[in-house]
């Protein structure tokens, strides 16, 4: 049984190919202005890595914000459904899956089979997602990848009222003028996002184990802040960026099985 999952994110397209529910290939491309082309390219490269052709794939399921742009998919699944499935796949003990992407954050409650039981979304606000960190890194004039390690060196967080990217940016600028250390500003930024994410998660209730996926899960600074806010351990898979695609591929395998 070979299946594929495509996650059409706002920033990146991710593709995963599964053979008997084991990951055999993955690829990612920037979504850019032509997400359909990006998806095709990511799919082709993943196929090449796996030394497979399109005909070998029994079912392709797409998910993500731009799901309609994945024109070659056989079916679709919601992002929350894919997250739940992937969370339980990575960790059988997962009961809550938090997904922090470029422009949206979500939390899903699931059962041991990865069936979604409830979900919350933090949309219409960039202050709880990856692009916020990017904007703040620009304001601090540091590389995005250095933000995490910078924040971990801080002993305290600078005070900012980051309820909105725009306001937070002006807050950060005034902190820079006051010559606050960059480490403490960086930590304040991660604390602010973690605050928003945790208040969203609390609407579902704390149901351990908690799994964190999405591109932002790779950021050690954010993970440390979120752990502090939630007061619990957080499990992170090796490749958190691909979680949505993995979830979609698992659904694809199930759907292909059902048709046979």
């Amino acid at each position: 049984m070979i299946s594929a999952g495509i996650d059409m994110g706002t920033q990146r397209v991710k593709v995963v190919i599964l053979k008997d529910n084991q990951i055999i290939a993955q690829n990612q491309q920037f979504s850019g202005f032509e997400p359909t082309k990006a998806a095709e390219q990511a799919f082709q490269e993943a196929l090449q890595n796996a030394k497979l052709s399109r005909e070998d794939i029994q079912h392709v399921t797409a998910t993500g914000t731009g799901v309609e742009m994945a024109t070659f998919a056989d079916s679709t699944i919601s992002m929350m459904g894919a997250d739940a499935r992937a969370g339980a796949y990575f960790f059988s003990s997962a009961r809550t899956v938090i997904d922090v992407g470029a422009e949206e954050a979500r939390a899903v409650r699931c059962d041991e089979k990865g069936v979604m039981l409830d979900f919350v979304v933090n949309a219409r606000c960039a202050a709880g997602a990856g692009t916020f960190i990017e904007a703040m890194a620009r304001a601090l004039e540091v590389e995005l990848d250095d933000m995490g390690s910078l924040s971990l060196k801080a002993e305290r967080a600078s005070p900012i009222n980051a309820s909105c990217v725009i306001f937070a940016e002006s807050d950060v600028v005034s902190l820079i003028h006051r010559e606050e250390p960059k480490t403490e500003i960086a930590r304040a930024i991660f604390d602010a996002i973690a605050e928003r994410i945790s208040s969203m998660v609390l609407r579902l209730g704390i149901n351990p184990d908690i799994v964190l996926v999405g591109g932002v899960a790779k950021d050690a600074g954010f993970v440390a802040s979120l752990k502090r806010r939630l007061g619990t351990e957080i499990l992170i898979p090796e490749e958190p960026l691909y979680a949505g695609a993995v979830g979609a591929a698992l659904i694809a395998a199930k759907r292909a099985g059902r048709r046979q």
Partner: protein
Amino acid sequence: MASEIEVGSKYIPEMAQNEIEELRSSIKAASIKAIKENLERMKKTWPNRPKTMEYFDEISNFFGQREKEIREQKEAGKKLIGYSCMFAPIELILAAGAIPVRIGSGWYDAAKLGDRIMPVEVCPVIRSTVGAKMVNLSPYLELSDAIITPLTCDGRTKLSEILSDYKPVWYMTPPRVKDDPQSLTLWKEEMRVIKGKIEELTGTKITRKKLKSAIEVMQRATKAFRRLQDLRKGPPVIMGRDAMLVTQTSLWDAIERWTQKTDELCDELEKRVEQKNWACSPDTPRVMVTGTPMLWPDSWKVPNLIEESNPQGVLVADEQCSGDRILYDPVGVDEWTMRDMFNAVSERYLMASTCPCFTSEHGNEDRVNWLMDRIKEYKVDGVIYYVVRGCILYAMEYARIKRILDRMGLPVYYLDTEYTREDVGQMKTRIEAFLEMLESRIDI
């Protein structure tokens, strides 16, 4: 001095006549388009839609036959009495020979006009109603000789003040607690005042005979409505949007004709039940909506998304003053004396309401009970809790309702939106995920 503050309009800014004309014609065109699109979408979802629905399609056009009919009746001397919410006593209006019509606005584009007077934090239902008035958009509001404005939520309270720039406005103050001994006394006094005003405007004394006949007209409407509702308890023989449209047109249609047409629709649907001719698969997740009223045509946004989603959902019931609450409760009369009938009308409008403007130490238990009963009767799989930004009372009651539904093990999703078409993508993602969840529960 009163005379100094009462010069000119209180709220409405001066607008040039040509600007009013331009805005009205563009919003009217958008509205006609929205009505047409909604109907096409409803037909697409339900290809086998019965011909008896066409009557309601016609009445759903705010600028069609019904407007013409009301104009003609007004020319013949009838009065039109508008009302802003469901506490207005329809039976008293009918008994005086006047035409009742609800005036709340579901036009998204009109809400933008309301922004000129009110901040965006104000509920868009209110902003839109004011916006519609600014450009004389709603024929029913324009033709109203007076408007009954029950002071329920904060939005409606100030809405009446704003509308009084244009029209005679008759306030009604419902008590916020139903069970206190003085509540009903106060409410009956409010009713008595309104009755006097209706009689004065129409020049018609509401006699025992006239009131009895009006109560019976509305009881027959309730009977037809309940017949339609009973059909929604089984496998889906009508799509939710179509049932919603039928119910909502009762707010401005001639009620006796509406009753007859609803009965005709039910005749057809009952036949279909025998033939097992369903509107969609009997496995379709059954959804209930509760919260802010969803007013025709633009606020069909969420119902459209639910019933066109993949996986699909079907709306089987609601707890909204734009839907099942309109006609569910009949006026219950013991003896057909004037006193008994008047008391029965008063009680019906206060006690049967499940509006979140009420409060009690048991936490607005009438609304909770209504929801729980419907969920069981209509075999609801999940609830969409629909709130437009600024609808504070519904937003605040969510935590209370969520806790009850959690205890019942029933999924509920809080869907917050605005009078805008721009969030359709986000709404769609969430609704799909919710329906996917309901579907996987049904599978298990």
